[in-house]
């Protein structure tokens, strides 16, 4: 009796992906304003995340920390002027898009790659890219492999539901080499596959692999190849059709980028309140005309910087130099410093 009910319970769970997507389709797609209304009524933003140190991980007291988590808090500041009115929930790459579609989340800040399929076929909108990444290969050192091509005949772990599952197939078709995938949904099992020697390599977003390498039992036995197999622009994802929510997400991210460009930081932001620069006055809401026009708290950008800091501070605090991950800014610095971060004007 019991055995049966557990069996059938998982049976149902196995279909959760397709079932949730179906449910989402039966309900109609999002209408403008709907998401914000729901968030306000609930008093909380629901955010779907992964479990990668530096990106999104609960600390010893259970409070979520990380690069993507900070953008979730920034969003809570925009909506509620309270960085705590946000709830983070882990969801696997396979489950999270359907879960967003069916209304379980208001937004995904889980390192989702913006793609045309996800926009048109799966019905999602994307905010500004918050992290420019590329797909990498984490390989056992003793294989002596320096390039992806040399993995001919290797067994490679891929995580189901990710762009990586598709990119790796493309990569080997392009190079005319063969590989055997082991497709795993659950993140823990995915890492164990490499740790136990079941697979020769893992493929995922490169920075995700760099961060997860630290969780392996012998991190030094593995090397992240320098090669990138794809472009992985990681952006906030929301249900298509809610323009208002999209704009809130857009300008929240832009506020952190623009603040860095202005040189405004969490520490010095108050000193800018007296700035004579009309652009900075508008940005910080000292001149309230802008906020009134867009229906947000005129000081939302000020509040964000005050509560979580600018883009550079968010990066440095969680994944940058001096953190265990020690990532270079790479493309992820303002265009004025040669990177790809570029906020449209606040005017």
């Amino acid at each position, binding site marked *: 009796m*019991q*055995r*049966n009910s*557990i*069996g*059938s319970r*998982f*049976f149902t769970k*196995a*279909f959760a*992906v*397709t*079932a949730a*997507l*179906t449910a989402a*389709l*039966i*309900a*109609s*797609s999002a209408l403008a304003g709907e998401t914000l209304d729901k968030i306000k009524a609930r008093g909380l933003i629901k955010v779907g995340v992964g479990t990668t140190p530096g990106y999104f991980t609960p600390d010893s007291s259970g409070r979520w920390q990380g690069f993507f988590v900070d953008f979730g808090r920034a969003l809570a500041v925009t909506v509620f002027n309270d960085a705590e009115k946000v709830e983070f929930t882990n969801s696997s790459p*396979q489950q999270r*898009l*359907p879960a967003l579609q069916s209304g379980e989340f208001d937004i995904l800040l889980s390192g989702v790659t913006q793609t045309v*399929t996800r926009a*048109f*076929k*799966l*019905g999602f909108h994307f905010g500004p890219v918050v992290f420019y990444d590329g797909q990498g290969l984490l390989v056992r050192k003793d*294989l002596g492999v320096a390039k992806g091509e040399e993995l001919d*005949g*290797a*067994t490679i772990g891929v995580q*189901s*539901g990710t762009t990586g*599952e*598709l990119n*790796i*197939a*493309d990569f*080997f*078709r392009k190079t005319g080499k063969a*590989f*055997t*995938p*082991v*497709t*795993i*949904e*659950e993140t823990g*099992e995915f890492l*164990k*596959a490499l740790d*136990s*020697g*079941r697979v*020769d390599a893992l493929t995922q977003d490169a920075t995700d692999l760099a961060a997860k390498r630290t969780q392996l039992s012998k991190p030094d036995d593995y090397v992240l190849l320098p090669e990138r197999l794809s472009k992985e622009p990681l952006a906030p994802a929301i249900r*298509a*059709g809610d323009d208002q929510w999209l704009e809130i997400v857009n300008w929240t991210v832009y506020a952190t980028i623009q603040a860095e460009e202005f040189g405004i930081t969490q520490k010095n932001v108050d000193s800018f309140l007296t700035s004579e620069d009309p652009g900075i006055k508008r940005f910080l809401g000292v001149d309230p005309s802008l906020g009134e026009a867009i229906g947000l708290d005129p000081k939302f950008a000020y509040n964000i910087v005050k509560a979580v800091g600018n883009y550079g501070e968010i990066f440095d605090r969680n994944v940058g130099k001096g953190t265990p991950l020690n990532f270079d800014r790479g493309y992820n610095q303002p265009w004025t410093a040669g990177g790809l971060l570029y906020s449209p004007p606040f005017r």
Partner: protein
Amino acid sequence: MPSRLSTWLGPLPFGQIFLFAGVLAIFALFGSNTVDSMQRTGLSPGFGFLFHQANFEIGETVLPYSAGDTYARALAAGLANTIKVAIVGCVLATVLGVALGIARLSGNLLLATFVHTYVELLRNTPLLLQLFLWSAIIHALPPPRGAYVFLESVYLSNRGVHVPSVSLQGLSWAIWLPAILLTAYASLSLARRLLTGSTFYIPKAAMTVLGSLVVCYLALTSFGLAATIDLPAKGGFNIKGGLSLTPEFFALLIGLVVNASASISDIVRSGIQSVKSGQWEAARALGLKPAQIMRLVVLPQALRVITPLMISSFLDLTKNSSLAVAIGYPDIVSVANTTANTTGQALEAICIIAAVYLTLSLSVSALMNLYNRRIVLRGEARR
């Protein structure tokens, strides 16, 4: 005719028609709503996507498949994987289950207690947990370089089980396959006719079949057939050659077999106990030995009780194979999920999964019912 109609409609015909129409209307509403919102997100409902290119790879397939083939082919490969684990699983679970069921009734207290504990343990822990355990055990095996080797030919490592395989060349399979099957069938029925009632029925039958197969093979070699044995060997990243069972398949198979054997052993036990003790006594009075009593008297009668219950065990095993997703075996559910995720055709994917399991269940039931009818009839005729 009117009486037929009234059985269909029950005592409250109008209420019934009304309710039925209501249910239909709700489904129609859901349907049109779904089509509507699919079209709004730019999806066209329907199965046209099945003929588009699927750009993902599947780890292991019985049907040839590679990235760039159609979704239809990918799903077929997933289905074949499901069928493979279900068929092998049902056969092995039956063998193990019957052995355990008989062991429990053997009168040997230690054995009986052991089997009892085994059954209770398996029936009262979630199958998913059992699968994770098997998967962890297999992952803990040494890597290919340090693989356990048996008889220089069977390799056990965390890359799976590698055994020698035989390939036949020189003659088209269209010739040797029917020849071998026919020989096996003919010798089996011959052995059966000659040996019924004899004490050494099974070994003698096996010898007859084996002997004829050897003769058949020798005959075929004179027409150019040659068998080569492919031994697995260590090479490159992995163990190469031979026939390989992946750790995922192996873990799923063991998990399903061990789990199903518990319920099958219970079924066998109760089936045997359902045969009245008079039958045992009568057989003993005729001077039959215990093994003969079991084979010739008890099992044929017990089968009538056992078979219908086995059907549901087989169906359980087949449905439980959808747990494959969790440990990385690419079954139909896993492929359908990826398909839904890359095409957005979730509704279609779920329809396909439903149709597949329905068809599998109905065919397993149909086959077993056919068998059931045969043994029931034979029992009746003898009486």
